[in-house]
């Protein structure tokens, strides 16, 4: 067992802020799954997700002095990961690059759930607008409630709720192969405000 694993979250934070590499590496280990998963769901590409996740941790390294608690750290990482991902999607849209979707359907290991259905759902989430995708990812991947999502995304709570409602309707319709597919398509391609 590494010594850093015995440190409490606050001790880890204090040591990392003081510039201790082992403590910072332990923070990376602790939050890599969260940051990478957000990046992957937002960008739908393993390589770009890895790159973005690394940049988030680099930014954290430079900003350690501004982090004051473990809960603040989790909030900060989610916020930076989502915002960076949205920025990157917008930059790429300006440069007309074709979004990659090979990893869109990457799903975590789940016991007896239907892997095909999960793959399809993950793929559909990757087709939502960036803002709606961020809301869905924070709600169903990170298990945040709408208030926390609103604060993470600097978004009014009612906008969060409407994104959630609308996204669920779209996803359900597409998964169930309902006849409203044609109505759904324009909504899915709309830009976030």
């Amino acid at each position, binding site marked *: 067992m590494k010594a850093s694993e015995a440190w409490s979250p606050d001790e880890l934070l204090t040591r990392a802020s003081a510039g201790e590499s082992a403590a910072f590496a332990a923070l990376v280990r602790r939050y890599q*799954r969260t940051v990478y998963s957000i990046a992957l769901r937002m960008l739908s590409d393993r390589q770009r*997700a*890895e790159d973005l996740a690394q940049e988030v941790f*680099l930014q954290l390294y430079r900003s350690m002095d501004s982090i004051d608690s473990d809960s603040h750290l989790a909030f900060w990482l989610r916020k930076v990961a989502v915002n960076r991902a949205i920025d990157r999607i917008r930059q790429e849209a300006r440069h007309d690059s074709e979004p990659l979707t090979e990893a869109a359907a990457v799903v975590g290991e789940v016991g007896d759930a239907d892997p095909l*259905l999960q793959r399809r759902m993950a793929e559909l989430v990757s087709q939502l607008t960036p803002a709606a995708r961020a809301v869905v990812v924070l709600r169903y991947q990170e298990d945040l409630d709408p208030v926390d999502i609103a604060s993470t995304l600097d978004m009014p709570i009612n906008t969060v709720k409407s994104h959630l409602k609308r996204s669920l309707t779209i996803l359900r319709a597409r998964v169930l192969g309902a006849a409203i597919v044609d109505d759904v398509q324009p909504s899915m391609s709309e830009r976030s405000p």
Partner: protein
Amino acid sequence: MSKDFEQQLRDALRPVDPEEGFEQRVMARVAREPAGLRSKIKRWTATLAIAASLAFVAILGAYQWQERREQQGLEARRQLLEALRVTGEKLDVAYQAVNRESPPPTDDGSGA
């Protein structure tokens, strides 16, 4: 149904681990950061704080020195005025004494 659907969504969006060695790759990038950027920033902050403290002490010292000079000037002025007053008084006394000792000359020959 809705709950089932949301659960299915949770299952589909279950967090995924990055490729093996992610932590090492991040730490390698951290190591490539411009030589001790954070410690440089801290050093600069400390230097600025020291410089600001020194400037404050210097300004305070200059102010106190100026204050002392003003007090000394006022004191010197007060002493000068006092000396002038004392001298004036003494001159008055001397003048009166001289006037008393030598009475004004009388006209002694013209009327004899």
